[in-house]
């Protein structure tokens, strides 16, 4: 920590929405325009700050890279942790509950900076698309702002306790938003289903993390004392750090030094902490990323939610799951990842193909998109499972790409639904005549989702496939006496066919909704969209194109963020 005052930009990003929410609650609920004004102001501020963080970090990637090269040169125990700690920027570290080793520690590295930007974009889009909500506008906007604050908190938290804190903070307004403003037929059921799934997942992960904290504590007080002292000397950990801490750096160092890899865990000779707890932590967060078979909350939740919540939910929250699974799972328990990801990859494969198949047969416009998210998030987890830099970078790109794309999709669906009052695909048709903007945006999103070169989907999916091929020869799975080798390549082949199904359903939906005959008598009032809607489409559509044409704007950053993880996974 330096003495000079630095602008606590991450805290401001988190607290601006909270303050906005509180201010709204003091305003007369009938003054809707004022409330909308506050909401959009807060959202724009947050987006501007997020962009500052993103581009600010982007400008430092070269420096981070150079430093990483220097650190890698030196090597030794603690190298990976050093890479991670050095990569953090915009850090804020204030002791919070010192006796429990909890500190209010925020920071941004190459991995979460894109997520910060994404959240900002979706926030603005979400506020704009909710512009015409007249039913308890004040409460809606207030809860939405709280949700945004929670999401931001998770993305920038470096202290695991803070991460969980914001994680739960995000779930509470979400439940209310869906249950109150959602689609009448499904909202109670879906809100409950979603909340329970996510809560149970997070509780399991929380237990795992607490166990990890105790294990690390015991290790640093015993075998790892030297490592601990050395880390204090070299500045990875702060001078007054205790052995008991929820800090990610702390836990990561313990993992790197082998704390979770001691045989004989729980009294069984062949077990280690990492082997036991990795699946719980990874899948516990993976629930939020829609990992099969824990994906079923998501389509129902997305369909039932009001458009803005679907956007933030599919666009950002699912990424939050994937992000946390990587940060807390793979980064903290790499030895567990090496054992378990080779089978978890099958779940991700099922995600990809299975989600696509279900999307293919849906009649409800929104369910198609809901299941497509399940399918595409499978690719993110698959990228993590490749455990090499190409595949993981691809997964990182896919997180951003899918976030913007699916938010765009839900925006389009919402715009059509608002005007046509139905989401039944066969009864729509010819909407390109009345809503050309939406049609173009939807086609851009659709092409992104099927991996069209020139759009961000391609530069995300191709590296994932690439990484899986490259990983194929290094990965094997042993079940009893039976060893499976080289199967990643087959998984890629099947997953690639999932992309074909994606193309099929995207085209089917596009043609049925936007092309064909326009049924004038059914939809006499359908007109073109408002200016706020156009801003949404531009805001979410443009990054897909920019990233597709010029991936260098994000890929090197993600790589610098992934290097610590890969250093743990044995080079990469």
């Amino acid at each position: 920590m330096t003495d000079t005052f630095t602008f606590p930009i991450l805290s401001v990003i988190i607290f601006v929405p909270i303050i906005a929410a509180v201010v709204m609650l003091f305003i007369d609920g009938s003054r809707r325009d004022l409330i909308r004004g506050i909401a959009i102001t807060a959202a724009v501020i947050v987006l501007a700050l997020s962009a500052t963080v993103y581009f600010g970090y982007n400008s430092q990637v070269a420096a981070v890279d150079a430093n990483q090269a220097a650190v890698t040169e030196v090597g030794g125990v603690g190298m990976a942790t050093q890479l991670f700690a050095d990569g953090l920027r915009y850090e804020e570290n204030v002791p919070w509950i010192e006796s429990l080793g909890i500190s209010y520690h925020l920071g941004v590295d190459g991995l979460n900076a894109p997520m910060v930007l994404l959240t900002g974009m979706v926030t603005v889009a979400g506020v704009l698309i909710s512009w015409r909500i007249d039913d308890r506008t004040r409460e809606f906007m207030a809860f939405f702002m709280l949700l945004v604050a929670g999401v931001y908190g998770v993305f920038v938290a470096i202290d695991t306790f803070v991460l969980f804190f914001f994680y739960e903070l995000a779930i509470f307004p979400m439940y209310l938003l869906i249950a109150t403003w959602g689609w009448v037929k499904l909202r109670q059921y879906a809100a409950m289903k979603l909340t329970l799934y996510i809560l149970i997942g997070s509780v399991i992960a929380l237990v795992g993390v607490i166990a990890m904290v105790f294990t690390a504590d015991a290790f640093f007080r015993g075998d790892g004392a030297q490592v601990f002292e050395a880390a204090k000397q070299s500045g990875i950990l702060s001078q007054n750090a205790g052995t008991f801490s929820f800090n990610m750096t702390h836990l990561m160092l313990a993992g790197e030094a082998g704390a979770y890899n001691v045989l004989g865990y729980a009294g069984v000779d062949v077990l280690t902490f990492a082997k036991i707890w990795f699946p719980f932590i990874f899948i516990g967060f993976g629930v939020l990323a829609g990992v099969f078979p824990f994906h079923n909350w998501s389509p129902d939740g997305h369909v039932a939610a009001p458009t803005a919540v679907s956007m933030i939910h599919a666009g950002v929250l699912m990424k939050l799951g994937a992000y946390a699974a990587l940060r807390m799972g793979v980064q903290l328990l790499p030895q567990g990842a090496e054992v378990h990801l080779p089978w978890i990859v099958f779940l991700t494969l099922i995600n990809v193909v299975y989600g696509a198949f279900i999307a293919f047969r849906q009649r409800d416009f929104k369910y198609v998109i809901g299941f497509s998210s399940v399918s595409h998030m499978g690719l993110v987890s698959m990228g993590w499972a490749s455990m090499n830099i190409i595949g993981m970078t691809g997964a990182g790109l896919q997180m951003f790409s899918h976030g913007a794309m699916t938010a765009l999709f839900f925006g389009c669906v919402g715009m059509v639904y608002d005007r046509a009052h139905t989401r039944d695909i066969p009864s729509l048709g010819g909407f390109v005549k009345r809503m050309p903007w939406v049609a173009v945006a939807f086609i851009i999103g659709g092409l992104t989702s099927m991996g069209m070169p020139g759009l961000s989907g391609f530069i995300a999916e191709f590296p994932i496939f690439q990484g899986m091929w490259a990983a194929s020869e290094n990965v094997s799975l042993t079940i009893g006496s039976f060893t499976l080798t080289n199967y990643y390549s087959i998984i890629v082949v099947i997953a690639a066919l999932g992309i074909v199904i994606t193309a099929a359903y995207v085209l089917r939906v596009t043609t049925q909704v936007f092309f064909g005959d326009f049924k004038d008598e059914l939809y006499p009032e359908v007109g073109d969209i408002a200016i706020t809607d156009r801003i949404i489409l531009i805001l979410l559509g443009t990054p897909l194109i920019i990233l597709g044409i010029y991936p260098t704007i994000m890929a090197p950053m993600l790589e610098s963020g992934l290097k610590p993880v890969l250093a743990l996974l044995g080079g990469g």
Partner: protein
Amino acid sequence: MNLNDILSNPDLLPWLIPVGPLLAFFIIMLATNRAKMVPATSHEYGGHHPDYDGMKVPVVTLQSRILSVTVGMLGTLTAWVLSLITVSNAFGAQHFGEEVFGDRLNWLATGVGEFTMGVLVDPFTTVMLIMVPIAVTMIFIYSIGYMAHDPRQSRFFALISLFAGAMLTLVVADNLLLMFVGWEIMGLCSYLLIGFWFEKESAYKAAIKAFTTTRVADVIMLLGIAYLYASAGTLSFRDILYNEAMLEHLASTPAIILGGWGLSAAGLIGVFLIIGTIGKSAQFPLHVWLPDAMEGPTPVSAMIHAAAMVSAGVYAIIRMYPLFEAGGNPHAGEFTTPLMLMAIVGGFTALFSATIAVAQNDVKRVLAYSTISQLGFMMAALGIGAYIAAAFHLITHAFFKALLFMASGSVIHGMEHGEHHVHEHHAHDEHDEAHGHDDHHDHGHHFDPQDMMNMGGLRKTMPVTFWTFLLGGLSLSGFPLLTAGFWSKDEILADAWLGLTHGFGAPAFVFIMLCLAAFLTAFYTMRQLGLTFMGEPRTEEAAHANLGQGIVSFTMTLPLIILAFLAVVAGFAGVHPDFPLFGAIFSPEHNWFHHFVGPTLLHEPASIDFSIVPVLFSFGVALGGLGLGYWMYWRKPLEAGQPDPLVSILGTVHPVLKNKYYLDELYATLFIQPSQWFARVVVSDFMDHGIIDGVLHLIARVFTWIGDLIKNLNIWLIDGVGDGIPELIAIFGTWFRRIQTGRIQQYMLLVVIAMIVIALIFAVSSGFLVQAAG
């Protein structure tokens, strides 16, 4: 760096080639595409669209039409001029082939390596740069007339500009990834263009079919690219294909899948890439999309079938040829897996689709199947190692097939013109006073302007179209000596014959299949020409068919004439030097095409010795087919109402051919319905809603039940205890009240008793009594 430096530097110039059309796309889309709203029943809202009564629809303004056409033409012409400069640079270069033009820069860095984007002009690219811009420009000129009355003409020009830009990107790409980018953008454009008249159900269905079918193949190709990158560490053509050590490495590494069966990495990558081509170049069994793609406007068909998309498929495998050959030597009888695959698929497709073409009555569908067949020729040629011949046929085919499609478009346009004429006439007669409005859609009369059975005698009203169509058709048939198609086809057959004389199986198969296919090609071409142009008009529409006067007629015939010229002379670039007479005239020193394109490969393919036998076969099949067709359809042309003589000759085979071997139906039964069933019943209903949600709901039930149980328990036990304690206290209270007597003595007694009890407890708990007892 300023523009001048780029223009004068042959290494950088190729970057600019695709820029013109791409820029034109953006300018038209963003700036010049302006529409006005007119009532849907208006005359301006052309004949291709259903009517929407009382609804306003957008129609491009005249100003927008002119601007968009100008921008599109400028873009294409720029590309053409830059291509010509590049071509002349290439002709002037020393040792071209060994030395190439190229430039590259980093695009996507991924830590272990970098994906680069770059351009490359080698001899093969050079000949493509001669062909593609000409064909594209002709198509542009042609569309000015053909689309002149379309309400979305600006959008059309934007899309074909993008298409052209993508094709040029693909041609100048120096690596597979950039090539794939162009490849996919073309796929997208073809989707949008085939479905251009999106109100028509058949059009958008065809668009989906085209996109989905090619997409299946593309994804497999992408896997090939991924695998290639994983094994070679680069995707650059030069680094892989011009590098013997790399090829050997790939050929000697066992493949990741099926490696145990002797498949090498190069083999598996090759198979993946070839599957991509099978989709894009519409080879069996993925050819089904191409005939349906005829739903698009005719210039699109020309674009897809000649200049761009399908050529791109063959272009890609010609480009990657050394990889397929790695580890084998087709001229010594060693065929690698990819080569065998190409020979079999190509040879089979060539004959297979030629038989279908024989029985089609739609003027464009005949050409569509003929395209599939000709692409089969190229595939088969590559499969037997006839690298140069395949490249040569690709070029000549592009010219005459673009010509044929545009000529057939003229025929269709003329027929629509005739139809319009007839209808106006009828409407006038029949509805004169009874119905005030003149709406030909009310007739319920479905006239198909593409059905050759409705034509006949068009040579009189459309002479230019007739003569150019004839030249294109003769070229396609391989009419000996005078047409381009003869020379390129002959070269393929010569190569196959050479293999056959050495007793190799694959060339023998290819030779037989291609000879049969060539015979059928000549026959169905003659049939098409006879049905369309000869005899007397079989319908009133055909009698009035013409292109009219003015700009439409001019812009539609000019490209035909230019392409007809090329369809004849292009073949003379590749005449075997030993060919009697012609060799001496056109190839005094060496076969120009062979000599120029050969150095594209590291080992220039040896030129084969001249042999008269395949030439005689070429003569025989072409003249035989043409003769048979002449005898059946020209000598005594079909009259109105007379059935096609082929129907009775072929008997029960005819419906099979006419229905394309029922493959569409078969695919629907085999793939589409099962996958829909699988998606609906197994995945969605059974798995997702049945098992996963079922388990969830079961858990919910169990939890509810447990909840109920606990609730009841709660009432009984916890509430019982909770309520019981106060009750008990009350009871005690009542009971204890009795000792509240108010008498001091009694209180004293109670205090003493209490003290004794406390003392006893204390004694017991401190062990005093135990010690005392001990």
